[in-house]
C-alpha cells in the first residue's frame, strides 16, 4: 500500500502543484522587480475563473480548434506517466520511454499549432510558425542530452537514467553531466516559452510565440491550455532537478521532499533568469538552440571517450 502511495503521490503532486510552480516563478520575478506581486496561489484562482467563463468561438474555426487544447493536455499528462518525479520510479517506465515522452510533447505542439492555424488569424499563424521552427532546433538538443544520459547511466528509461546512482556519476563524469544539464536548461526555457526565448507576459502580439497561438482561446479552453503549459514546465523542471540533485529512492518520503525543495529552487532560478536577462531577437533563438545541441554533443563525446 505504501509502495503504491509512493508511486502515485508524486504523480498527484505533478498534477496538483504545477500551477504553484508558475505562481512561485511569478513571485520571484515580482520580488526582483521590487513589487509585492500576486499571491502564490494566483494561478489556481485564474484557472477557476477561466473554467467558470463562457468561451467565445470564432466563426472560422472547426473542431480542430476545440480539440487542440484537449489533445495538448492529454499528451502532457500522458508524458507525466513516464516521468519519475522523485521518491519513486515513474508510473509506467519502460526502455525507450523517453522517446515517447518527447514525441508526446511533440503531439501537444502539433495540436496547439493546428488549433492556432484554424482561426485564420495571421498573428496565430506567426506564432505557429515560430513554435514549429524553434521546436525543430530544440528537439535534437533534447535528444542529444538524453543520448548522453543513456550513455552515462546505461539505461534507456527516464526512471533508470534518474536513479539513485546519480551522485556517484556526478563525481565520475561531472563535466559531461554539467554540459548536458546546461543544454537541458536551455531546451527547457525554449520549450516552455520562457525568457530569453519568449516572454510569457509580453503585451504585443507581434513579439509573442506561445501566447499568440492561443489568442482566440477563451474560457475553459484557455484554462486547459494554461494548465497544460504549467504541467509541461513542471515536467522539464523535474527533468532538470532530478538530473542536478540526484537523490536516493530507498526512502521515498524524504526524497519526495528533496525533490519538491529542488523544484522550489528551480522556480527561483527561473525567476532570476527571467528577471536578469533580456529576450533574444527571434532570429537568434535557433543559434541558442544549436549552441545547446553542441554542448550536449560535447557531453556525449566526453562520455564516449
Amino acid at each position, binding site marked *: 500500500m505504501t509502495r503504491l502511495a509512493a508511486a502515485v503521490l508524486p504523480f498527484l503532486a505533478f498534477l496538483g502543484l504545477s500551477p504553484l510552480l508558475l505562481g512561485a516563478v511569478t513571485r520571484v520575478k515580482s520580488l526582483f522587480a521590487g513589487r509585492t506581486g500576486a499571491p502564490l496561489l494566483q494561478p489556481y484562482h485564474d484557472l477557476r475563473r477561466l473554467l467558470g467563463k463562457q468561451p467565445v468561438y470564432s466563426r472560422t474555426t472547426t473542431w480542430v480548434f476545440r480539440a487542440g487544447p484537449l489533445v495538448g493536455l492529454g499528451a502532457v499528462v500522458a508524458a507525466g506517466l513516464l516521468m519519475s518525479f522523485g521518491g519513486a520510479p515513474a508510473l509506467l517506465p519502460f526502455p525507450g520511454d523517453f522517446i*515517447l515522452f518527447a514525441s508526446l510533447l511533440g503531439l501537444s505542439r502539433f495540436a496547439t499549432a493546428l488549433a492556432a492555424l484554424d482561426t485564420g488569424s495571421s*498573428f496565430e499563424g506567426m506564432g505557429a510558425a515560430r513554435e514549429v521552427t524553434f521546436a525543430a532546433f530544440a*528537439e535534437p538538443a533534447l535528444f542529444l542530452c538524453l543520448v548522453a544520459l543513456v550513455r552515462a547511466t546505461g539505461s534507456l528509461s527516464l526512471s533508470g537514467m534518474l536513479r539513485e546512482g546519480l551522485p556517484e556519476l556526478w563525481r565520475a563524469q561531472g563535466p559531461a553531466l554539467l554540459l548536458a544539464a546546461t543544454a537541458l536548461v536551455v531546451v527547457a526555457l525554449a520549450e516552455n516559452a520562457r525568457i530569453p526565448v519568449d516572454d510569457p507576459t509580453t503585451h504585443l502580439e507581434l513579439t509573442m510565440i506561445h501566447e499568440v497561438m492561443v489568442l482566440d482561446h477563451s474560457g475553459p479552453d484557455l484554462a486547459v491550455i494554461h494548465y497544460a503549459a504549467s504541467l509541461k514546465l513542471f515536467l522539464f523542471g523535474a527533468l532538470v532537478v532530478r538530473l542536478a540533485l540526484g537523490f536516493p529512492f530507498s526512502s521515498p518520503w524524504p526524497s519526495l521532499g528533496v525533490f519538491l525543495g529542488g523544484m522550489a529552487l528551480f522556480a527561483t532560478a527561473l525567476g532570476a533568469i527571467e528577471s536578469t536577462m533580456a529576450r533574444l531577437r527571434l532570429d537568434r533563438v535557433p543559434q541558442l538552440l544549436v549552441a545547446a545541441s553542441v554542448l550536449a554533443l560535447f557531453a556525449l563525446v566526453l562520455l564516449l571517450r
Partner: protein
Amino acid sequence: MTLPALLIAAIVLTSVSGLLALAVPRRPALGQALACAALCAGAVLGSVAAVGALLAPVPPALTLPWGAPGGALALRLDGLSAFFLIPVLVVPALGSVYGLAYFPQARLGRKAVRLQILFGLVTGAMALVVTSANGMLFLAAWEVMALGCFFLVITHHEEREAQRAGFVYLASAHAANLALFAMFALLARLAGSFDFAAMTGLRAAWGPATAVFVLALAGFGLKAGLLPLHFWLPGAHAAAPSHVSALMSGVVLKTGIYGLLRVTGFFEAPPASWGALLLAGGAVSAVMGVAFALAQHDVKRLLAYHSVENIGIIVMAAGLALLGRARGDAALVFLGFAAAVLHVVNHATFKALLFLGAGAVVHATGTRDMDLLGGLARAMPRTAALFLVGAAAISGLPPLNGFASEWLVYLASLRTVYDLGPVPHPHFAALGAPVLAFVGSLAAACFVKVHGTVFLGHGRSRHAAAAHEARPAMLVPMLVLAAACVVIGLFPAALLPALAGAAAQWSRVAPEALVGPAASAGASAVRVSVTAAALAAVVLGAWLLRRHLLRRGPLGPPPQVETWGCGYSRPTARMQYTGSSLADALVGSFRWAFFPHRRVLPPRGVFPRRALYRATVPDTALERGIVPALAWTARMAGRARSRLLGAVQVQALLLAGGLVALLLWLALGGGAPW
C-alpha cells in the same frame, strides 16, 4: 489450396484485372467495377498467402522450368517477401476502389481503361518482384513494373509537365535497370547460378561483393528515391493521377528497399562499412527530403519529397541492421530490420492515405497550389479528418503507426551507445537519434503547414470556395488506410514476433537469439499502448468536463464571432499566413541547398497598384546536377561526332562488327558463362 497456388492466382488475377473492362466495352462503369473487383480479389488472395507464409514454419516455395537462359519460374515467400507482399497488393487495390470515383472510365473513356490495365499489370509485376527467387525472373518483372509505371506517369500525356516527368522517369528507370543487370550478372558469376537459393550465403569478400553492393545501391537507390538519386520522383509523383501517386510512392518505391534488403541478405557477415554507408546516406536523404518538402507549394510535390525523407529513415534502419550483422549483435539486427520493414508497411499506409487525400482536394478544387487553398475542412470535413490522421502518422506522433516504427529506429540507434557487451559498438550510429528527432520535428512542422494551409482558416481563392466533399468510393479507401494507421500504432507489439522470424531468415541469425530482443521490445510496445490509452482517457475526460461546464452556463451557447485581429473587424482571407510564410524561417536555414526561381515585382511609387512575389524551389539534384551534366555530355558528344561515323551505314557496320567480335570472343573463350 496451397500457398504458392494462392500467390500465383493473386499475381495472375491482378495482372489481367484491367483487361476485364474490355469484355464489356458498352458499359464502362460495369467494366471498371469488374476490374476493380478482380484486383481486390487478387489482393485478398495474395494477403492470405502472405499471412499463411508468415505463420508457416518453412517459407513456401515453388519452382517451374522456364526457357529463358539461366531463368526459372521460382517463387519463394519468406518473411521479407510476405511483409512486402501485403502492402504491394493492398495499396493498389484500395487505389483502384478510389479510382472508381476519381478516374471513372464512364467519363474519361479510353484514358481510364488504359490506366486500369496498367494499374493491374504494375501491381502483378510488383507482386512478382517481391516473391521471385530467380534473378532473371526478378529482372523481367522489374522491367514490366518500370515500364508500366512510365505509362502510368504519362497518363495525361497531352500535358507538357507529364511528358517531361515521364521522360525523366524513363531515363532514370533505365539507368537503374542497367545497374541491376550488371549487378545480377556479377552475382550470378559469384554464385554460379541466377537462383536466389544459390546466391544465399555468399562471402562478402572485398572486390566483387563491393561492386555488387555499389551497383545495388545505385540501381535500387534510383528506384527507391534515395538522395541524390531521387530527382525523378517529385515530378513523376506530381504529374501522375493521385491514386497512381499513391501506388508509386506507397509501394513502387518500396521495391527498391526490398531489393536492397534482399541483396544484402545474400551475403554472410557484410562489412560494417556497408551499414555505415546506408546509415549516413539514409540520414542525408531524410534531412534533405524534409527540407525540400518544406519549401514546396505544390501539395503533391511536397508529399513526394516526404517519400524521400521516409525512404531515408527506412535506409537508416536497414543500415543499423547491417551494422548489427557486421558486429554479430542479434538485438541490433532485430531492431534495425523490424524498424525498416515496419516503416515500409507504415509508410505505405500513411503515404497512400495522404496522396489519396491530396487527390480528393485536387479533384474538388482543381489546383495543387496550397497557397490558393484554405478552409477546406468546412466543405470536406471527412477528407480533412482522414488527412489529419495521415499527417500525424507521418510526423511520427504517438499513438499512430509512424511513431511505432520510428521508435524502433531510435532504439536500434541507441543500442549502439548504451550496451557495452563484449563486442565494440559503432558509437557514431547513436547520432541517428538526434537526426531522427530533427527530421521528425521538421516533418511535423511541414504537416502543420500542409493541413493548416489546405484545410484550416479561410479559403484563399475561388478554387477553395468551390470545393465539395469527396465521394464515398474515395473516402472508403482512405478510411481503411487511416484505420490501419491507428491499429498498427496502438498494437505494434502484435507484429514483432513475425518481424523477428523474418529478421532471422534475412540475417540467418539463429531465431532463438532474436526471441529475447523481440520479447523485450514487445513488452515496451505494450506500455506504449497503455500510455496511448491514458492519453485517450484524459482527452475524453477533459472533453466531458468542458461539455459539462458549457451546458451548465446560464448564458446559453457560446457566441460565434470573428477571429481576433487586434480590433480590426473586416479581415480578408488574403491577410492569413500562407504555407510559404509559415515555413519561411525553416526554409531559410536550408538556403545553402536551394536555388529558388524567383519572380519579384516590388511595389513602386507612392500609390503602388500591383506587386508580385512568386518563388519556387526546384530540385537541386536535377537542375544543378543531372541536367547540366547531361547537357555537357551531349555537347561533348556532339563535338566528337565525325561526319563519317555519323552515317547510318557506318553505324550498322560498326554494330555488326562489334557483335561478330563478341560472338567470336565467346566461342573462343568457351561458351556462355552459365
